């Protein structure tokens, strides 16, 4: 494995993604979605009261960002973070290009690392764009008003902004766990429908399972629970247990999925 080989693979993958309309659609949705939501909130009188911070969306733009985070973490991020990762490897199967790729002066490890790095970059990019766009949409369309947190305390705009940024940062680990899972499925099943679709289904099943009453350990062992770990940041005194657990579990999932994916790819007989 060499840095030069990996960067060459990342460059080629970036070029390929840059030529696909899918990449731009994902990023455009992350960029425009929050503005459309904030504008709709401003124009209509009903509020999304069934979501945390939903009652405050007309008072503080930071509430808009948090409502979007709550919604996106449940429904959008399992999709957005697997849409690229679930196709990077199986795309080579679909086009029958593995032999072509591996006859270049890059090892399998280079190709694997380069593709994984590309998937991670795209997932991070979607989260960063969504976070920046939702905060900007909230502040520009609704205004940077103070936010009442989940323990009834009024946060100034600065305090709210710091917590909102931390909340968005907290979903990076579980999102990457979904990306790694998508990569694993994409390598094993050699099929992009499974690579992109199955992580979404698994995400939904985990969320349904998390609604069952039971021991806390079981709920905490679901990756999707880490998407809601930021709630503790908006309670005073704050609690960080779910954040640490979510980070540890997501990291373990990333390592496990990528190890299995690499072993599968390294052992695969492509010559035939």
């Amino acid at each position: 494995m060499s840095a030069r080989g990996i960067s060459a693979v990342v460059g080629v993958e970036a070029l390929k993604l840059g030529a696909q309309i899918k990449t731009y659609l994902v990023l455009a949705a992350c960029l425009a979605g929050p503005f459309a939501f904030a504008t709709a909130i401003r124009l209509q009188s009903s509020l999304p009261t069934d979501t945390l911070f939903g009652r405050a969306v007309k008072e503080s733009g930071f509430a808009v960002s948090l409502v979007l985070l709550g919604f996106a973490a449940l429904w959008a991020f399992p999709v957005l973070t697997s849409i690229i990762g679930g196709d990077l490897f199986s795309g080579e199967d679909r086009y029958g290009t593995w032999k072509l790729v591996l006859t270049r002066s890059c090892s399998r490890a280079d190709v694997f690392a380069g593709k994984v790095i590309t998937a991670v970059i795209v997932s991070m990019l979607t989260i960063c764009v969504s976070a920046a766009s939702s905060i900007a949409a909230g502040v520009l369309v609704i205004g940077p008003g103070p936010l009442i947190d989940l323990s009834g305390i009024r946060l100034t705009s600065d305090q709210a902004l710091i917590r909102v940024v931390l909340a968005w940062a907290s979903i990076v680990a579980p999102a990457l766990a979904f990306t790694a899972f998508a990569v694993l499925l994409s390598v094993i099943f050699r099929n992009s429908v499974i690579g992109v679709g199955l992580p979404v289904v698994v995400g939904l099943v985990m969320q349904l399972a998390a609604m069952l009453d039971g021991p806390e350990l079981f709920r905490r062992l679901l990756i999707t629970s880490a998407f809601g770990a930021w709630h503790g940041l908006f309670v005073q005194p704050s609690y960080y247990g779910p954040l640490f657990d979510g980070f540890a579990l997501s990291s373990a999932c990333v390592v496990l999925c990528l190890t299995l994916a690499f072993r599968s790819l390294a052992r695969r007989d492509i010559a035939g």
Partner: protein
Amino acid sequence: MINRALRLVALAIGLSGCGQSPITSMRAERAIAPTFANLVHTQMVWIGLPPVAASDFAVQARCRRLQGAPSGSGEWTCALTWRGPDRRTLRNSYELFVTTDGCYAATAAGENVGGPMLTSENGRDIRNLLYAFEGCFDTT
């Protein structure tokens, strides 16, 4: 492989039925009492009344689950007893919907906290924080 995965899912769902839920009355009471006190404090500032420290309201909460086992997610009710700004003892009750992640949505039961909107001292319409509010507590 798929069979094994299905067996794991079945085991996980089976396990989830055992053990006590972390959504207990003690956790709910410890969460809603200070949250309510903070909200009364914030509401008074919003309306333009002289502020009173949240701890002066001495809020005490008694919560119970409406159906089934004494702990778990779903519908709860909480009775709050607190000392108003004029030192009178006040009582409010809230209906809660608690989710398994320890977050709840509380809605006032009865009329004694007013409607969803209030008018401040300077005539501005403001949201009644005590009419409905949300909070979260640690489930570990």
